[in-house]
């Protein structure tokens, strides 16, 4: 280990150090001035971003004896993850304050979760990956149970914890099989071992692989390992849901790409079928069940499952185009997801969460601007051009078609038509119905501003998607 190792991991180490500072400083802050913790957390995120940019890898570097990787993929995912955690904190602040939940632990747990994500994103060995995953998962379990007097939150956290523990067990079991067959935990060495001895590509390895896929599916919330997701989305307080719905998806993407492509890329034929089944089921189940929901958080939960289907289908292709499409889709999806939960938070006030679809009735009369923003976000999620969600879908369909699966492409577009219905329903409630609720929206100026930027971003990105597209294509070439 030398200095270069530490420079590559500088962002994580900086983050960890600053989290400890925030944690200790928060002890001396009383509830009146809790906003100080918020600003310290934002400053922490700012410094982390700065460190990330300062230590940006030019090319792929593998450090710490092969267990840690820093490359363009990790760079973009980490920067975006930090940005979305900051967004989640900002949207959360006013909500927590008005609901008497403004505790320093929210920010500290959020930051620890981010640390877990960053470790996952940079993991180059199965054990590093597992460490990052558990750091993230434990933070999330606690965040879901954050409002300890709330029965649904507690139930959701319990469910998440138990199912998460089972999935972790499955994952570790899978890891042990992979280790047993290849004799290594490091992704590049696993890949090399399979190339060196093709006879390894046989049932014992596939058996381990199946368990890894279970872990991946659970993390993403793909069918049939999606059971926790709607309950957690609904049960968690909305800022926590926003947190879970945005940045961790980036970590899950890195998790999948590192294991399946970096490590087991040689087994594409084997894992492609498994991923396809999971993806198609997610697409169908997510879209169809979302239609039946009356709780908007739960509805967006099922919608997430459907979007995960798209991401996994892009990975299924096993081509650079597919990986670029998966990256593009994930990055753009979380912009719309974070914005949607942001609007739900905006509509909430003391003792009242705008959880039900019917709470959106007549929003256009109350606030035409935020109704417009929500409409942008919904159309983007539905994949209607010119919003960015359309280009995400376009990319994935292009990848699937160029890999020679026209049937899947048609299935995907038909599923999007089914999905369009429930997004349209939100717009219908906002624009076509009269609402009983006439309360004026309360939100501070910075929240309003950022939320507006968030909404406009899905349109602006849709009008100029070229640069992001080029960036994703370039990064996809650097994987492996």
């Amino acid at each position, binding site marked *: 280990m030398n200095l270069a190792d530490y420079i590559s991991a500088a962002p994580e180490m900086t983050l960890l150090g600053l989290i400890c500072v925030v944690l200790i400083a928060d002890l001396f802050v009383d509830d009146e001035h809790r906003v100080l913790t918020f600003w310290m957390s934002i400053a922490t995120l700012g410094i982390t971003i700065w460190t990330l940019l300062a230590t940006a890898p030019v090319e792929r570097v593998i450090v710490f004896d092969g267990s840690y990787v820093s490359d363009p993929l990790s760079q973009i995912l980490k920067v975006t993850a930090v940005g979305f955690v900051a967004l989640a904190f900002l949207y959360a602040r006013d909500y927590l304050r008005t609901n008497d939940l403004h505790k320093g632990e929210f920010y500290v747990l959020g930051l620890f979760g981010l640390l877990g994500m960053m470790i996952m994103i940079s993991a180059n060995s199965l054990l590093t990956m597992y460490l990052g995953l558990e750091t993230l998962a434990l933070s999330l379990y606690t965040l879901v149970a954050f409002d300890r007097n709330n029965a649904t939150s507690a139930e959701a956290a319990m469910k998440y914890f138990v199912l998460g523990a089972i999935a972790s067990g499955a994952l570790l079991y899978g890891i042990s099989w992979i280790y047993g067959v290849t004799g290594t935990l490091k992704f590049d060495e696993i890949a090399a071992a399979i190339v060196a001895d093709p006879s390894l590509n046989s049932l014992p390895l596939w058996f381990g692989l199946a368990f890894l896929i279970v872990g991946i599916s659970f993390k993403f919330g793909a069918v049939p390992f999606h059971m926790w997701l709607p309950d957690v989305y609904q049960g968690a307080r909305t800022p926590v849901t926003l947190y879970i719905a945005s940045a961790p998806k980036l970590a899950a993407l890195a998790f999948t790409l590192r294991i399946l492509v970096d490590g087991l890329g040689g087994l594409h034929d084997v894992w492609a079928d498994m991923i396809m089944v999971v993806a198609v089921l997610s697409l169908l189940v997510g879209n169809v069940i979302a239609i039946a929901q009356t709780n908007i958080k739960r509805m967006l939960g099922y919608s997430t499952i459907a979007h995960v289907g798209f991401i996994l289908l892009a990975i299924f292709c096993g081509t650079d185009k597919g990986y670029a499409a998966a990256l593009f889709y994930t990055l753009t999806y979380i912009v719309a997801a974070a914005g949607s939960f942001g609007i739900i938070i905006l509509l909430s006030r003391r003792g009242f969460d705008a959880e039900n679809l019917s709470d959106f009735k007549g929003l*256009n009369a109350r606030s*035409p601007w935020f109704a*417009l923003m929500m409409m942008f976000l919904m*159309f983007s999620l539905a994949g*209607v*051009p*010119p919003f960015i969600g*359309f*280009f995400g879908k*376009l990319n994935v*369909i*292009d990848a699937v*078609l*160029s890999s020679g699966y*026209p049937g899947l*492409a*048609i299935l995907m*577009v*038909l599923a*999007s*038509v089914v999905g*369009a*219905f429930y997004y*349209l329903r939100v*717009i*219908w409630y906002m*624009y*076509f119905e009269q609402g009983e609720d006439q309360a004026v929206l309360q939100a501070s100026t910075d929240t309003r501003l950022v939320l507006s930027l968030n909404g406009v971003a899905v349109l602006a990105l849709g009008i100029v*998607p*070229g640069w992001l*597209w*080029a960036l994703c*294509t370039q990064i996809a070439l650097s994987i492996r």
Partner: protein
Amino acid sequence: MDFSLYILSILIWMPIVGGILLLVIGDDDDVQSSRSMLMRAVALGTTVLTFLVSIALYKWFDNSTAAMQFVERSSWIPAIDVWYYLGVDGISTPLILLTTFVTPLVIIAGWDSIKVRPAQYFAAFLILEGLMIGVFSALDGILFYVFWEAMLVPMFLIIGVWGGERRIYATLKFFLYTFLGSVLMLVAFIYLYGQTGSFDLFKFMNAPLDMTAQKLIFIAFLLAFAVKVPMFPVHTWLPDAHVEAPTGGSVILAAIMLKMGGYGFLRLSLPIVPDGSAYFSGLVITLSLIAVVYIGFVALMQKDMKKLIAYSSIAHMGFVTLGFFLLWSVGSGTGAGLGITGGMVQMVSHGLISGAMFLCVGVLYDRMHSRQIADYGGVANTMPKFAGFMVLFAMANAGLPGTSGFVGEFMVIIASFKANFWFAFLAATTLVLGAAYTLWMVKRVLYGEVANNNVAALKDLNQREFFVLTILAISVLAVGLWPAPLVDMMNVTIESLVQQIGHSKL
């Protein structure tokens, strides 16, 4: 800077920017307040200015070439070779002119009859106008698709917010039907991109494709365009959408959005998959004839005026698709392009007539809040000026010589005679059926004794309504009596299109 180089971009973006401006200005409850007046003035000003710019387009348009004119091309998404690529020829220019002509009339027609959030209403129409012009001038597959789908968004809101009682059902049906149709077109585009490495429509047209691919692509296109036209049996969204839409929405829907389907056939289906089109031409002709005859009978039985006009639209659009797909039955020689020309003229004419008919119903609806034929009777006694206009448009709808309705139908019937006597026989029934359902409605609404006190209390047209209907009446007669400028504009383009379709891609 040469203005003509950017004329298409100006036509597309000026109304969109105007629409955003309207949202910024907003409105208040008082129709007479200076803010409301400013908002309306901006709406009208933008659409009129757009119309004036489109007149410049007409002036500068060169009839003698089939090449794309006023071409603009700049890179948009380099990673997949998507271009911001615009251009017009003799097929798109008349439709752009129709769009810019009808939109200001819609704005005037909704001047003070829209009470709920008028700024959003006018803004939706302006943005819609820009997007529709975008569809007619896009020459890149993705750009085309973006405009094509984005168009659904304002229309979804127009029907949903300002529509009638069952507006939510109608607008969801409208959106999902058209969305379902178009996503398969997207898959076809991406497949063609895989074959050519570009989304350029001309590269699509030149790409060699085997028969299976052509058949599948044709079906994908057919679903997208048949829903839009709409063709039997996927027409059921139209009566619902028309009935529930506010007057302006019905006018735009009938006058322009239905034309998107016809335009799509000419711009995409025929040149990109000529052999597929030939293979399926029998199917399309059959469906068109069913639309003409069967839907004509359905129209006869309607009790609701808007529904009747909606069914009449489907029957008339059946003529358009019939004309477009006669080519292979006619064979080469003179008149090969006659069906296509007839279909194009019919599209423009139907845009004017159906728009006018919906405005007439809107005039009555504003006064009586009823669309039921049975609630009326003897309107001519209390509204003589209105009755004059309505009779004229009804005659045009029935295809009376001297009105625009006659020209297109006549051309298509001649072309179908060349193809097959029975095609012509069935197509010609529209002259009987069209006259029957339109004139019967006119008789029941306008003539006879004054039916009830409400009708007795009706006031005749105000100046604003009189102005809008006069302009439409003049244009219906102008196209009917002197169609040459319209036909000249598209002749060369259609000839070259016929040539292009003649070359098999196999």
